[in-house]
C-alpha cells in the first residue's frame, strides 16, 4: 500500500512534523518526537479546566465538518455529572476525505494523547473510538498503539502515576455514513440502528446512555497535545484569526499529486491545487472544485480565483470549509453523471428516519439515474431545482442538507449541462468522468 503524497515536513507542524517510516507510528518513535510530554505536563501541573481553557484560547474548531468551536462544546458539559463520556469520531466517510485515516495510521499515539487530554478536561472515565468498520490498517495501528499505551501505563488506572484514570474502547462501525453524525454515532454505540436523534437535548447534556457526552473528530482531538504543549495562544497564531490552526487538507480528483497536505487555514486554494498538487491532469483547464467534501456546494473555476482555505472565505463564496477534502474536476467532465454518483451515494446512506431525506434522496437519484440513462424528461431539471429546497433545513439531521446542497449547486452552476442531457438524452461531455 502506498502513502499519499506528503509535502513539506516541518518540525513545527501539528501532524506532519516527521518523515514517515516503517515504525514512526510506534510509542518509542512518538516519544522521541516529544510525545506524551503534554499529557505528563497536564497531569502534573494543570487542572482539567486549564486544559479546556487552552483549547478555548486556541480557537480550535471541529475538524469533522461542522466547524464548531471545541472549547465551547466542552464547556456545555456539566463536569459535576457523575458520568461524562468522550467519543472520538473515527467514522470518516465524507467522500473526498481521508485525513483521519492518515492520523490513525501514522500518528495513532497523537490521537491517544489527545483523547486522554480531552478526557482529563471533561472528567470522562471512558473514551470510545468509533472507527468505521471498513478500516483495516488504521484499526490495527490504533489497537497496537493502545496496547503499547496500556503497557506503558498511559491508559487505564493511575495514568503516569497520577490519580487520573481513563480507558479507551475501540468500537467498529458497520458501514453507515450517517454514523459520522454525532447523535447517530451515539445511537449506534448503544447497540441500535444509527438513527440520529432530535436535538435538543444535545449530547453534551444527554448523550451516550443518557450521560453528558462529547463527540469530537479524530483530527480535532489530535490537535490537543500540540495546544497543551505550546499553549492555546500559539495555536491561535497559526492560520487565520477567525479559524486558527493547521488542517490536513485532502485533495483528490483530477490533479497530478493527490494526497494530504498540512497547511495553515487561510492557505490559498489555487496554490494548493496548482502548486502543491501539481495542477490538473494532462494540463487541462480547471472546471470545478468541491472544496470540503462532497456535501459542500461546488464552485466553478472562476469562483475560486481568490479563495483561501478558511471558513469565512468559503462561506462568502457560497460554499463551506467542511471536512477540508477538496475534489478537483477538470474541464470536459460530465457534471450530470458526476452528480448522479453523489445522489446514488446519499440515497444509499439515508438512514430512512425522516420524510424529506428518505423520500427526497431516492427521488433525486431516480431522476438523475434516468437522465444519465438517456431517459430525461422536460420536468426533470425543474424538479432537481425544487426537490432540494424541500429538503434543506427541514430534516432531522444534516445528512439531508448534505444531500441537497450538491444537487442545488451543480444544477445552479452547470444548468446548461443538465438541460442538455434531459432534452437531448445524451451527455454534453460524452459521459466523461476521467480526465
Amino acid at each position: 500500500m502506498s502513502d499519499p503524497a506528503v509535502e513539506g515536513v516541518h518540525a513545527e507542524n501539528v501532524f506532519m512534523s516527521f518523515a514517515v517510516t516503517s515504525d514512526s507510528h510506534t510509542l518509542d518513535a512518538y516519544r522521541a518526537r516529544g510525545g506524551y510530554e503534554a499529557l505528563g505536563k497536564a497531569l502534573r501541573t494543570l487542572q482539567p479546566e486549564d486544559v479546556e481553557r487552552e483549547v478555548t484560547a486556541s480557537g480550535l474548531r471541529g475538524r469533522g465538518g461542522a466547524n464548531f468551536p471545541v472549547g465551547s462544546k466542552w464547556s456545555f458539559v456539566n463536569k459535576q455529572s457523575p458520568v461524562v463520556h468522550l467519543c472520538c469520531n473515527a467514522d470518516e466517510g465524507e467522500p473526498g476525505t481521508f485525513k483521519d485515516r492518515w492520523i490513525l495510521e501514522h500518528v495513532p499515539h497523537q490521537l491517544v494523547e489527545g483523547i486522554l487530554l480531552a478526557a482529563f478536561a471533561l472528567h470522562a472515565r471512558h473514551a470510545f473510538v468509533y472507527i468505521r468498520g471498513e478500516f483495516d490498517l488504521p484499526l490495527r495501528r490504533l489497537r497496537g498503539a493502545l496496547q503499547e499505551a496500556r503497557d506503558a501505563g498511559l491508559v487505564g488506572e493511575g495514568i503516569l502515576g497520577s490519580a487520573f484514570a481513563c480507558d479507551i474502547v475501540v468500537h467498529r462501525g458497520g458501514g453507515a455514513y450517517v454514523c459520522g453524525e454525532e447523535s447517530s454515532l451515539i445511537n449506534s454505540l448503544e447497540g441500535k440502528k444509527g438513527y440520529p436523534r432530535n436535538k435538543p437535548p444535545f449530547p453534551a447534556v444527554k448523550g451516550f446512555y443518557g450521560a453528558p457526552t462529547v463527540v469530537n473528530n479524530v483530527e480535532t482531538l489530535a490537535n490537543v497535545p500540540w495546544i497543551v504543549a505550546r499553549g492555546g495562544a500559539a495555536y491561535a497564531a497559526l492560520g487565520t484569526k477567525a479559524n486558527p490552526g493547521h488542517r490536513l487538507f485532502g485533495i483528490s480528483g483530477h490533479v497530478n499529486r493527490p494526497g494530504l497536505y498540512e497547511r495553515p487555514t487561510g492557505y490559498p486554494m489555487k496554490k494548493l491545487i496548482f502548486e502543491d498538487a501539481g495542477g490538473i491532469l494532462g494540463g487541462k483547464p480547471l472546471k470545478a472544485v468541491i472544496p470540503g467534501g462532497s456535501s459542500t456546494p461546488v464552485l466553478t473555476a472562476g469562483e475560486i480565483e481568490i479563495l483561501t482555505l478558511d471558513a469565512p472565505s468559503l462561506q462568502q463564496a457560497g460554499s463551506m470549509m467542511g471536512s477540508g477534502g477538496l475534489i478537483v474536476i477538470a474541464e470536459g467532465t460530465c457534471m450530470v453523471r458526476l452528480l448522479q454518483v453523489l445522489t446514488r451515494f446519499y440515497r444509499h446512506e439515508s438512514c430512512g428516519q425522516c420524510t424529506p431525506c428518505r423520500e427526497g434522496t431516492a427521488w433525486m437519484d431516480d431522476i438523475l439515474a434516468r437522465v444519465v440513462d438517456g431517459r430525461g424528461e422536460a420536468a426533470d431539471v425543474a424538479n432537481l431545482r425544487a426537490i432540494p429546497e424541500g429538503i434543506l433545513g427541514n430534516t432531522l439531521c444534516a445528512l439531508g442538507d448534505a444531500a441537497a446542497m450538491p444537487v442545488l449547486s451543480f444544477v445552479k452552476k452547470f444548468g446548461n449541462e443538465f438541460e442538455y442531457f434531459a432534452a437531448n438524452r445524451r451527455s454534453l461531455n460524452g459521459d466523461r468522468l476521467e480526465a
Partner: protein
Amino acid sequence: MKDGPGDADAGRLREQFDRLRSGYPSQMNASLVLPLLQIVQEQKGHVTPADAHLVADYAGVPRAQAIEALSWYTMLHRQPVGRHVVKVCRNIACALRGSDRLLAHVEKKLGVAPGGTTGDGRITFLAVECLASCGTAPVMQVDETYHEQLDEAMVDRVLGDLR
C-alpha cells in the same frame, strides 16, 4: 479467510463474545450488538436472523433490536458470500479516476455484476461507497485489505491471487 457457510461454532463464538464483553465497561452490554454480529460474520461469512436472536439474548436487548440492526448496517451480509469479498469504490474521487472502467473490468473478468457471487463460490463482488482512500483513487478492498492506485493490471494480479 472465512469459514464456509454453516452453523457458527457455538463454543468458539461464546469465547469470543466473552472476550469482547470484557473490553467494555459494565452495564454497556447493549453496545455489543453490532460487534457481536461482526464476530458471527467473521466466523461464518454471513449472519442469519437466528444469529441475531443469539446476539440479542447475549447482549440483553430485545430480539427486534438486533434484527433491525442486522438489516440496517450494510457491512453485514444476510446471505452467504464467496470465500473472498471484493469491494470496489464507486464514489466521486474514484469515479473521477476511472472506477467505472474498473467496475466494468472486474465484472467482465468475474462474469458477475456487482452484488453477485461467482459460480465457484470464490468471490463476491460489490460496488461500495467511499472508503476514505480518495488520495490514492481508484481503490478496492479485498477482504480486509485496501488496494490503491489501481489499474487493470493490478486488479488482475490481486484477483488472480485469490483462491
